């Protein structure tokens, strides 16, 4: 048995995670407590509590690869954080056999002023490698990252691609007995996700134990024999991946990807379901796929000529495309009660990375805000620029801070005497090399 979790629970006091306390507030509470008969003193106890996980028990055999699935906020990441010892559980206990390593985030502990060489040692040590282990693997790490020429340059002068490659190379050479992978935290970097998934395949073939948190149901199905579905902090299903994933997808279709319902808004978005051109519910698209959003809303009463907008934002919160009735003039005559609207983005040439959907509504005057929600749904555009026919030296790197969609363009270099070259992102199927 590699992992044995018994009735694990993690409680948060709401607000505890959001901000630190200022001494001023404490003093104010004390004063208020002294004057107002303990009102302040009981403020802490009154703060609402949230069980992010409750009564979670499961066993994992050594060598198993287990998928952990569930909606955003279901408690998956909390579970990994407890397993990685970043935070301790409030109750219950976990027995672990073997060294734990995590691909929760790469580049942790990098110091920008230090050279690549120094950072390999520092970061390796922080991740739990001994000096001799690092020495032994040093050349391998550097070769894997393809940064030999720059190994004695401070990493602050690295390109983001080099930085990520080196960071990943260190994490990939950790060789723990239990590997924790959180795709959610690695989001925004599809190239990295692919590498993570490849690495996981290798690791599980070597008889190590892998826990894989993911929204990518295809990857879970193909990599993990078994999956655990966590919903609102509890294990709701644990078994063969195929059946758990099928149940989960079923529930997502009838439940929602993300609900923003607060209940008191005049018009609120109950859920947004993403579908591809074939009508399948998914959160994975190829660049150039139609992205179809089913928006289920509830209008309190009849709202005449409301304005709606839907925006696709990249992982650092920059909008990349928008559909807005205030610009196109096609606001619906009215919305009333619960209903469904659909917005289809036709073949957007989005660069491969993670995206979020933001949406909102305004009254007919175009001023009064009826609802406004960021991150109502998430999706990823798969692959790398390579897969879409762009073959430059940087086309396989980290794109999370790359806001631009790529429209077809041409280069003219008359001095070379060569004809103009035109560039565009081609459909993945035609550009992708056969595997």
């Amino acid at each position, binding site marked *: 048995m590699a992992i044995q979790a018994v009735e694990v629970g993690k409680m*948060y006091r709401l607000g*505890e*995670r959001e901000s*630190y*306390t*200022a*001494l*001023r507030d*404490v003093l104010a509470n004390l004063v208020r407590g002294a004057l107002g008969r303990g009102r302040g003193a009981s403020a802490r106890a009154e703060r609402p509590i949230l069980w992010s996980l409750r009564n979670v028990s499961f066993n994992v055999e050594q060598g198993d690869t287990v998928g952990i699935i569930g909606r955003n906020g279901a408690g998956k990441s909390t579970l990994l*954080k*407890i*397993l*990685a*010892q*970043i*935070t*301790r*559980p*409030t*109750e*219950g*206990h*976990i*027995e*672990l*056999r073997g060294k*734990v390593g*995590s691909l*929760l*985030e790469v580049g*942790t*502990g990098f*110091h920008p*002023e*230090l050279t690549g060489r*120094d950072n390999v*040692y*520092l970061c390796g*040590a*922080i*991740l*739990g490698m*001994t*000096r001799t282990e690092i020495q032994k693997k040093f050349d391998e790490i550097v070769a894997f990252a393809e940064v030999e020429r720059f190994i004695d340059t401070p990493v602050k002068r690295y390109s983001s691609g080099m930085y990520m490659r080196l960071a990943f190379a260190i994490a990939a050479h950790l060789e723990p007995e239990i590997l924790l992978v959180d795709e959610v935290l690695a989001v925004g970097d599809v190239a990295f996700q692919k590498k993570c998934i490849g690495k996981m395949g290798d690791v599980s073939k070597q008889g190590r134990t892998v826990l894989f948190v993911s929204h990518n149901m295809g990857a879970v199905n193909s990599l993990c024999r078994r999956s655990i579905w966590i919903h609102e902090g509890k294990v709701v299903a644990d078994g063969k991946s195929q059946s758990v994933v099928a149940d989960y997808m079923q529930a997502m279709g009838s439940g929602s990807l993300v609900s923003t319902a607060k209940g008191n808004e005049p018009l609120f978005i109950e859920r947004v379901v993403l579908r591809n051109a074939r009508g399948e519910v998914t959160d994975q698209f190829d660049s150039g796929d139609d992205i179809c959003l089913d928006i289920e809303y509830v209008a309190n009463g009849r709202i005449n000529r409301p304005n709606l907008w839907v925006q696709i934002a990249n992982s650092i919160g920059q909008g990349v495309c928008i559909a807005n009735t205030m610009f196109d003039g096609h606001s619906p005559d009215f919305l009333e009660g619960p209903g469904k609207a659909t917005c289809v983005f036709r073949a957007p040439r989005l660069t491969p990375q993670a995206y979020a959907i933001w949406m909102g509504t305004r009254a007919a005057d175009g001023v009064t805000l009826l609802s406004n929600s960021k991150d109502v749904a998430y999706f990823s555009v798969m692959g790398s620029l390579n897969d879409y026919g762009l073959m430059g030296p940087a086309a396989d790197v980290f794109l999370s801070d790359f806001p631009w969609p790529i429209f077809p363009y041409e280069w003219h270099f008359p001095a070379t005497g060569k004809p103009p070259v035109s560039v565009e992102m081609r459909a993945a199927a035609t550009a992708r090399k056969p595997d």
Partner: protein
Amino acid sequence: MQIRPTAGWWDFRLGEVWASRELLWFLVWKDVKVRYKETVIGAAWAVLQPVFTMIVFTIFFGRLAKLPSSGLPYPVFYLAALLPWSYFAGALSGCTNAIVENQRIITKVYFPRLLLPLSVVIAGLVDLAIALVVMVPLLIYYGITPSVGLLLVPAFVLMALLAALAFGLWLTTLNVMYRDVRYVVPFVIQFFMFASPVIYSASAVPARWQWIYGLNPMVGVIEGFRWALTGTGRPPGLIMLASFVAVCACLLFGLVFFSRIDGSVADRI
């Protein structure tokens, strides 16, 4: 290995700290390496700071205010105190920020959190060692021979380290809970300096109050440094004992306090 909720008051996990001593050295080495990176004169800063303070003190407290200096030349009197004091002040303020400054690492990877304040107080020793070298020409110039007490300097340094760590654990924990602490600390350090015999000599404090005065561990450390480097004055006996007891108590409760938030620091930060 077992993961459990924090178990009681005395769950310091010192075994884990010992097991990760290699990481501790890496953190110390990083601190030292990063500190003077891209500065023009590099490690000379470790020397300049106490030397300039010594010059200012010599002019104002010495020449102008004519404070007693136990018969020692003012530059020697002040520098011998400023060396341990600068180390202590730097280590203490570094310790205060040790957890909060590393929140990115703390929320992503587990290692014994105690390594962070520990690495700060150890890295400061490098500066102290460099600065100690300045003492040599100064002693030669004034023709002062150190006493055999010189051999005890490491003990005084260890005491300063433990004192910085003891107070630092309190402050770094408080800093996680209340960010006001970082504004308070420079003031606390200044206050601390007046409560330590940096500007004046410990003999200025009446004999019957000496043991209370000695509860401030820096009293013993600074007096010890003066005695060891210059051979003047008495070795601090009773004061040192009071200091030692105070530091041990403070360190023990600092560890208790620190380990109370150790398990939840990633959630609080």
